[in-house]
């Protein structure tokens, strides 16, 4: 890992040149907030840097809501996704473990991963529900992403993370090694400032392993209380960067269509005889917490909740999982 820098003007020019080889997606602001958009030359100047966070999770680039998985995946124009907060980058960790599993390698997922360069964004400042650092995830990327970018005044500072990221820097003219310690310590200071904001906003929130034990030991009253506002809409799972459950639907010709599904929908675990271990709302509601904080942690190395806070923002029942955890403490 090392740092490079380039002027903002030259960076924008480089992005314009890259458009001929890559499809570029980056966060833009609209009246509805910030989200990943397809970038054309005219919108390069409007790309948002270092401000948390796009409305959609990064997984939507790798796991379409619905896709036919019957034939071999076709080749596509390579793409660059920019402006990814580290909560989303960390979310890719568990998706990689699940979909790039050596026994059952998902070609559709792996093709998209191979075809995509991930440019992370160091978060400057936080949103109301951001809590990545409570789960040991930094508000800046040092792994999984290919490079990370931080805009400081009229300079773009690039942290090169992977070989794929290094390869991309060769396509960016005028990029220079960052030698002065001064800029790097300014970057460190920005990281520290965001970390302090996260810490003070979430000082009462239990950490990841403690949350797991609290969830495991919680009595049914707490699940009944919080699920009383749940309408099983599945917004929390749809918006979650790590929720990945799906359904295979059969089409004539033995074709399979893979569609995102969620344990919060009634009938998710129903078997043919009618048995359904998640039929009760509070048990179904609890299932998501058990999955993220108890079961997945015992099975995978990567975090199953990266503290992005989107499930809190998306819930129409205004259910705040962090309030639930703080009540359990």
């Amino acid at each position, binding site marked *: 890992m090392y740092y490079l820098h380039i002027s903002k003007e030259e960076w924008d020019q480089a992005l314009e040149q890259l458009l001929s080889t890559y499809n570029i997606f980056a966060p833009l602001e609209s009246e509805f907030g910030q989200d990943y958009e397809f970038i054309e030359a005219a919108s390069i100047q409007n790309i948002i840097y270092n401000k948390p966070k796009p409305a959609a999770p990064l997984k939507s680039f790798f796991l379409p809501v619905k896709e036919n*998985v*019957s*034939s*071999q995946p076709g080749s596509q124009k390579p793409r660059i996704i920019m402006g990814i907060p580290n909560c989303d980058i960390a979310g890719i960790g568990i998706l990689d473990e*699940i*979909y790039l*599993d*050596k*026994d*059952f*390698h*998902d*070609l559709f997922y*792996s093709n998209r991963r191979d075809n995509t360069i991930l440019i992370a964004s160091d978060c400057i400042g936080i949103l109301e529900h951001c809590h990545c650092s409570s789960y040991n995830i930094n508000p800046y990327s040092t792994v999984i992403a290919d490079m990370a970018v931080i805009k400081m005044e009229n300079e773009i500072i690039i942290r090169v993370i992977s070989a794929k990221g290094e390869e991309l820097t060769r396509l960016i003219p005028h990029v220079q090694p960052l030698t002065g310690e001064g800029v790097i310590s300014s970057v460190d200071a920005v990281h520290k400032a965001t970390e302090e904001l996260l810490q003070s906003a979430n000082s009462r929130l239990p950490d990841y392993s403690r949350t797991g034990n609290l969830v495991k030991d919680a009595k049914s009253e707490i699940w009944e209380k919080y699920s009383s506002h749940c309408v099983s809409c599945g917004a929390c799972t749809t918006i979650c960067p790590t929720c*990945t*459950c*799906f*359904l*295979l*639907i*059969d*089409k*004539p*010709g*033995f074709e*399979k269509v*893979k569609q995102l*599904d969620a*344990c919060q929908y009634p009938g*998710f*675990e*129903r*078997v*043919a*005889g*009618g*048995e*359904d*271990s998640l039929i009760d709302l509070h048990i179904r509601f609890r299932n998501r917490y*058990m*999955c993220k904080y*108890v*079961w*997945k942690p*015992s*099975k995978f190395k990567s975090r199953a909740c990266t503290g992005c806070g989107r499930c809190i923002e998306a819930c129409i029942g205004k259910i705040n999982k962090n309030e639930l955890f703080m009540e359990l403490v």
Partner: protein
Amino acid sequence: MVNNRNIYKPVRAKLTDVIEESPLIKTFVLIPEEKFAFKTGQFIELSVDGIGEAPFTPSSSPLVTDKLEVTVMKTGYVTEYMHVLKPGVFMGIRGPYGRGYPVDKFFGKEVLILGGGCGLAPIRSLLYALEAVKDKLLKVILCYGSKTPTDCIYKPLFNRLSKTEKFEAYRTVDKAEEGWDGSVGVVTTLLTRIKVEIKNSVAVVCGPPVMMKFGTIRLLEMGYTDDQIYLSMEKNMSCGLGKCGHCMMGEFFVCKDGPVFTYNELKNTPDIWK
């Protein structure tokens, strides 16, 4: 090394025969278009073209790779369609998936098998596998319960097993019918009739959830330890690949970590009998 096969694509298999086992249960005989090997206790996803797929453990011998038998109870949307299929059509199969019965761990032991209803399907496959290695086993005892004598599947199997060296087979029914002079009662009632040396034995349980629950409880009362009891679990295994989440049972993906588990592995998992 990464396999470049599309994990979601089924292999076509020609349906060559449909055997009526009981009013609700049929066995489908399939010839896959590609060689299809499985280990006993592993399961497959069997599909009706354009309708849907469902998980089943083959009921045929794992030693046969060009033909596959799957025994299906009519109990839901997909199986309703299966039950009207006639020989000549093509079905789809994916798999085999999961962890089957660890037959080599049964060597030198007595194997007690408790089966209920359609749960005899995976057990028949296991019995074929055990017959092939019977020299290495002390004995195999099958205790099987069905609702009525009419609901009993694979009737010729019991005759054959009772004539096979080292094998014993017992049947019971919940409700007798005219002409039935055998045992009446749930499957665990048969356990009073058998002789096993529990210390040197393993028990296999496969059947409806309620039978698995009470079968396991009875085996524990008899003195079987948690890791001597093998359970074949059934959940809504949809992808079979440990990805889709439908069959999660606590930390386990039943499709990948199971479907065969020891009771020891599952005893701390909530709601396993649901």
